[in-house]
């Protein structure tokens, strides 16, 4: 039973992990992108639509990543290059996603989206006699694998590569980075593009893996939970990994309890992830550890 739980945890955590890692890069560069929710939704939609149209789920995932990058481009042009307020621009992105995906979805399928080819797990259930974690891992889709690999890669990249160091400098003290010749706007824009691409892919995990169809607003706040994961994870890749697993596990547990018909009304279960997130934030809010220049648009000016 716990093996199934572990497997469910990883499966549910995967989209959160991918999106949160993307946002980690973005926030380490000093930008807050609450539009990650909308970006995921765009990714879910585009991934689904392309998969249906081409019959190939991987094509859908690739398209979702691309769509995410485009949304990131929109966000970056307003929030980074123009210096408009990041929270406001993020809200606009979310609205745009809700409106555009609903419009497009109804135009294409008149309210009854078909089922898409799904992303299969990497390996077959052949590894049944492996220990706990092994089986759970083997049954995962590429999303989970990618997430785990990216978590490790991000940790290394942020601290042991020069590019990572420069990105962190931009996020901690943009002015100091600028004075050293690090292109602040370009670094931030690139981080946003990367983060949004990941969010787009994470979104496609929702419509091509966790479920097999698209429904309007299907992200249901996962993007915001990813934001909370970055804070809870103290802006470190290892923390983000742990926090994603934590939330994935909590959701998996919620489904288990629900299935058992524990006498709690359904909406109560639906509420749990959000209440849990709030509780976690209330206990673990680490303002002190946030990157120094987080959320502040940067304009080069004379001293």
């Amino acid at each position, binding site marked *: 039973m716990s093996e199934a739980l572990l497997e469910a945890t990883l499966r549910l955590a995967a989209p959160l992990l991918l999106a949160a890692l993307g946002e980690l890069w973005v926030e380490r560069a000093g930008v807050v992108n609450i539009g990650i929710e909308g970006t995921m939704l765009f990714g879910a939609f585009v991934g689904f639509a392309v998969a249906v149209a081409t019959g190939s789920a991987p094509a859908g995932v690739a398209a979702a990543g691309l769509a995410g990058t485009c949304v990131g481009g929109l966000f970056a042009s307003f929030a980074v290059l123009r210096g408009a307020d990041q929270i406001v621009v993020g809200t606009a992105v979310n609205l745009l996603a809700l409106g555009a995906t609903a419009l497009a979805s109804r135009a294409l399928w008149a309210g009854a989206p078909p089922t898409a080819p799904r992303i299969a797990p990497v390996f077959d259930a052949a590894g049944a006699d492996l220990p706990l974690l092994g089986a759970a891992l083997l049954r995962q889709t590429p999303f989970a694998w990618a997430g785990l690999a990216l978590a490790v890669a991000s940790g290394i990249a942020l*601290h*042991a*590569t*020069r*590019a*990572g*160091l*420069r990105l*962190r*400098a931009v996020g*901690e*003290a943009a*002015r*100091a*980075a*600028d*004075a*050293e*010749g*690090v292109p602040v706007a370009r670094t931030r824009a690139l981080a946003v593009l990367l983060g949004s691409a990941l969010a787009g892919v994470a979104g496609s995990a929702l419509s091509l893996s966790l479920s097999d169809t698209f429904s309007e607003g299907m992200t249901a706040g996962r993007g915001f939970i990813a934001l909370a994961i970055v804070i809870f994870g103290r802006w470190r890749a290892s923390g983000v990994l742990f926090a994603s697993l934590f939330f994935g596990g909590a959701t998996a547990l919620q489904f288990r309890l629900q299935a058992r018909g524990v006498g709690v009304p359904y909406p109560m279960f639906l509420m749990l992830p959000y209440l849990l997130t709030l509780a976690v934030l209330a206990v673990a809010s680490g303002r002190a550890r946030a*990157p*120094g220049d987080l959320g502040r648009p940067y304009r*080069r000016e*004379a*001293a």
Partner: protein
Amino acid sequence: MDLEITPGEVHALLGENGAGKTTLMNVLVGLVRPDAGRLELYGVPFDLSRWSPAAAVRAGIRMVHQRSALVPAMTVPENLGFGDPRGGPWFRPRRAREAAQALARRYELEVPLDRPVDALSPGQRQRAEILRALDRGANVLILDEPTAVLTPSEADALFASLRRLRDAGRAVVFISHKLAEVERIADRVSVLRAGRCVASRPARGLGAAELGRLMLGAAAVPGAGPVAEHPPAPRGNLPGPPRLELRGLSAAGPDEASRLCGIDLAVGQGEIVGVVGIDGNGQRELEEVLAGVRRPTQGEIRVGGAPVAVAPRPLRRAGVAHLSGDRDSAGLVPGMSLAENFALKGSYDDRRFFRRGRFDRAAARRAVAQALRRFSIVPDDPDFDCAALSGGNAQKLAVARELDGDPPVLVAANPTRGLDVASARFVHELLRERAAAGAAVLLISSDLDEALAVASRLVAIVRGSLHPVPPGSDRGAIGSLLLGAPA
């Protein structure tokens, strides 16, 4: 502006506030693109439209800022590493540390390499900055008022380092408004005034008088900074109990040096007590406690003999006014009008402007209009947005506001920072007036000349403790008093 900088020379740039020193430096490091003129590097003209910080860095021009431009959350090796164009794609912490260690040893710069920069003292931070500049192969090293945050012994160490750099063939540009330093370290002096370079001569043989004259453009007073000599300070101390008392005041600070430790101070009626010290020794913390925004861990404040809660409103009700020259603590709200800013501090208690939950804008307008005229604040429109006021006028507004109502206790922190000479004198006059009328004035100033000119008695703040300055001490004696433990 015409200027020539040669290698193997310490070139001092002298000029008072507003002469253009900072702008010139920003141009040199690529942060500001010049509108017109020519820029030649090593005899080769450079395309101005491509001038940028990266270009400046490539040309070997490095600036060591007054306020550190290092990334606070990173260690020194990391700071050295991130901007380095030579390094490969990988960053190896251990190797970086070793390299930094070697460099520091070669130039005899003592810098801790394992702590984040925000945990270092100002002197250490400055040395780290110099280290970084050298690491990049700086040929031209620019230092902007570097001794402002140093103790005298750290300043000596700095000068020694600069001489070593000069001997190694670098060009050192040293910006200052302190004549004494220029005399000590410079090989060549250029004087800036109102955006032009009015003189550029070898330093040898130039006297303080000559330099002062060039800098101020008029009959200057030798040995004085921008604020000239004044009539003798008030005798102070009218009979009666001290108006303002600090007893055993302790407060936390961001680092060792600025923690307040058991401060005892009494300011009598009619006295102006000047608190002098090097920036970073607790002045800001002391100011914040007196303004009520920093809670002391121990001790109390008494006004007129009675203890007062350390919070902005109780202090204000007890008659303590707080005036600050720092934009941060000035307590002016950009985006609100002059009238609203004038009324700001009384939003809970001042019945003239706030009655029965209502803000009487007309009354505030009338009150501020008087102040605007009296203090010659431009423009004198009560509805003008405070954000658009020039620094000097904003300062005057703050002064007008704090002196409104003739407070019996006045805490003034760097009240003339950023003001031109005439306005500064005006403010000093006001302080003297208040004292003569019986108020107790506490002047916290990082400008020793200002304190000497205005205060009736001096107190030195060193690493969070107060030490009285014997009356009649000269600058040298005071300077030694300000000597703290090595950084």
